[in-house]
C-alpha cells in the first residue's frame, strides 16, 4: 500500500463521505470551535456532559477528508467515555503526531478504527487537519470557546 493509499484508507474515505455524529447538538453543555487558518476550515464540537460522562458529542463544519473523518472517528471514540478517558485519548492522538517516533507506528491504542489516522503521520502538512477536531474537543472540555491550529 503506498503512502497515499495509507492516508486515504477506506475507513477515512468512508467517514469522509458519511460522517458519523455530524450535526448540531441541542442541549450541549460544552462547545468550542477549532479554526485551521491555513485553509480557513472550521470545526465546531458539541459535547453533552452528564456528570463526568460524555453522554453525547457531535460536530459541524467543513473540512477536508482527513479533518472530517477524524472528527467523525472522534465522536465514535469518546461518546460514552468519561472526561478523563477522553482527555487520555486526546493525549494519545497528540503523541501519535508529535511524538519522537514520528515514522514508526507507535504503541497507539487503536480504539478500533482510529488507527486509520496513522497514515497521516507520513504527511506532516496534514497533521493539523487530523488534530483539528481533537483540539476543539479539548477546548470544549476545558470550557474554552475556541482554538486555532496556527
Amino acid at each position, binding site marked *: 500500500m*503506498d*503512502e*497515499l493509499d495509507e*492516508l*486515504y484508507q477506506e475507513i477515512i*474515505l468512508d467517514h469522509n*463521505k458519511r460522517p458519523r455524529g455530524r450535526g448540531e447538538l441541542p442541549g450541549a453543555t460544552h462547545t468550542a470551535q477549532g479554526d485551521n487558518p*491555513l*485553509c*480557513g*476550515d*472550521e470545526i465546531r464540537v458539541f459535547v453533552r456532559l452528564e456528570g463526568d460522562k460524555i453522554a453525547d458529542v457531535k460536530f459541524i463544519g*467543513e*473540512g*477536508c*477528508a*482527513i479533518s*472530517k473523518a477524524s472528527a467523525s472517528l472522534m465522536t465514535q471514540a469518546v461518546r460514552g467515555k468519561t472526561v478523563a478517558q477522553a482527555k487520555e485519548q486526546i493525549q494519545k492522538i497528540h503523541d501519535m503526531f508529535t511524538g519522537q517516533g514520528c515514522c514508526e507506528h507507535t504503541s497507539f491504542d487503536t480504539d478500533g478504527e482510529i488507527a486509520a489516522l496513522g497514515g497521516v503521520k507520513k*504527511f506532516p*502538512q*496534514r497533521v493539523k*487537519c487530523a488534530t483539528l477536531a481533537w483540539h476543539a474537543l479539548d477546548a470544549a472540555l476545558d470550557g474554552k470557546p475556541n482554538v486555532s491550529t496556527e
Partner: protein
Amino acid sequence: MCLYYSLMPSHSSGGATAKKTFCVQKVREDFPILGTHTRAGKPLCYLDNAATAQKPQAVIDALSYFYANQNANIDRGVYELGAEATELYERARKKIAARLNAASPAEIVFTRGTTESINLVACSLGGSVLKQGDEILITAMEHHANIVPWQQIAARTGAAIKVAPITPAGELDAMAFENLLTERVKIVAFTHMSNVLGTINDAAALTKKIRARCGAKVLVDGAQAIVHGDVDLQALDCDFYAFSGHKIYGPTGVGVLYGKQALLDSLPPYQTGGDMVVKVSFETATFKRSPHRFEAGTPAIAQAVGLATAFDYLDTLDMPAVRAHEADLLAYASAALREIKGLTIHGNAPNKGALIAFTMQGVHPHDIGTILDSENVCVRAGHHCAQPLMGVLGVQSTARASFALYNTRAEIDALVKALHKVNRMFNE
C-alpha cells in the same frame, strides 16, 4: 579609480545587444530548481508561482557575486567598496524605475514586499489624511495584505471601509464601484490582478474614474500584475504601486513601493532610525526626502541588487513571446480543466492572468493538493489569503494552479492526469 561599479561580469551586457528570444525549454535550464525534486520518475511540476516564483541562475549568481565581491554597507562609506555597494543599490533603484516608467528613481522605495509597502502607505498616508467619517474603498477581490492594514488604520482614525462588489464572472462591478466613489472616499486601494480569480483590473481606467470623481489617493496592489503584465506607471497614473520581489523571479526579503515623489515627500516617515534622517538630537529629528525617508536602517542591499538582476534577466527574453506563452498556458489549462468532471473554475474574466482557482465536487482542496503532490504536481490549496473573497464565492477554500514563464503544456497535462486520479480516488 573612476569606478563606478563593476557589474557582475556575466550579465553586464547581454540583454542590450543580443537578440531577444524565448524558448521555454531553454528558459527552463535557467532555473536550477526545475531539474531537482524528481519523484518516482516524475519531474517537479511547480504550479504555485503566484505564491512565489522560482529564481533564475542569474539572480542566484548575482547574490553570490555581491556577497563574495561587493558587500559593504551603503550610504555611509568613504571607501571605494562602500561607494561601489551604494552605487549597485542605487543602480537597482534606477533599473526598476526605468523599467516601470517611474518619473524618477526617487519614487522607488525598497521594502520587504507588497505587504510592507501597503502597511507603509496605510500608516503614513492613512494616518495623515483619514478622519472620522472618511472612507477607504477596496474591492471584494483583495488579498489580506490589502484589507487588514486598512482595517487597522480605519480603527485608529475612525474611517470606514467600503467594499466594491464583483460580478459572477469575477470582474469588478464597474457601476457599483463608481457609485461608491463619493467625496468621503479618501483612499482607494485595489488589486491590479487578483491572486484567486486571475482578473486583471484596468488600473488606468479605474484611476481615471477615481480622479474624476474625488480627490482620493490611489494605491494599486501589483503583486501579481507585475509578473503577468508590463507595468507603465505613467500610463497607470496611480499614486502608489506595490509589489514583491520574490514573485517576479527575485529574492525573498525585498519588495517595492512606488509613490509619486511629491506625495512621498509630503508624508511622515514610517519606520525611523539611521540613514533616513538629516539630523538627530536627543529631542528631535529631521528626515530626508524620498526614497531615503522611507528606508530606515540597513536595507535589503543584496536583495535589491538581486531584484534588479531579475528584471535584467527578463530583459534578455522576448517579452511579447513570454506573454503569448502565458496566455497559451492559461487557455490550454482552462480548456482541459473544464473537461474534468465536477470541476468548477472560479474567475472567468475575459481579461485574466495566468492562474486558475478551482474546486471539485466532493473533494476538499486540501485533499486535491495532497493527491496532486503525490504526482509531484505542486498547487496551492486554501483561501489564498483572500478569506473575504472566499465568502463571496461561497467556498471555504479552493485549489489553485498558477503559471510562470517556465511552465509547459506538458506540465498542464500532468496536472490534468493527477486531477483524474483525484476523481478516481474520491468520486468513484
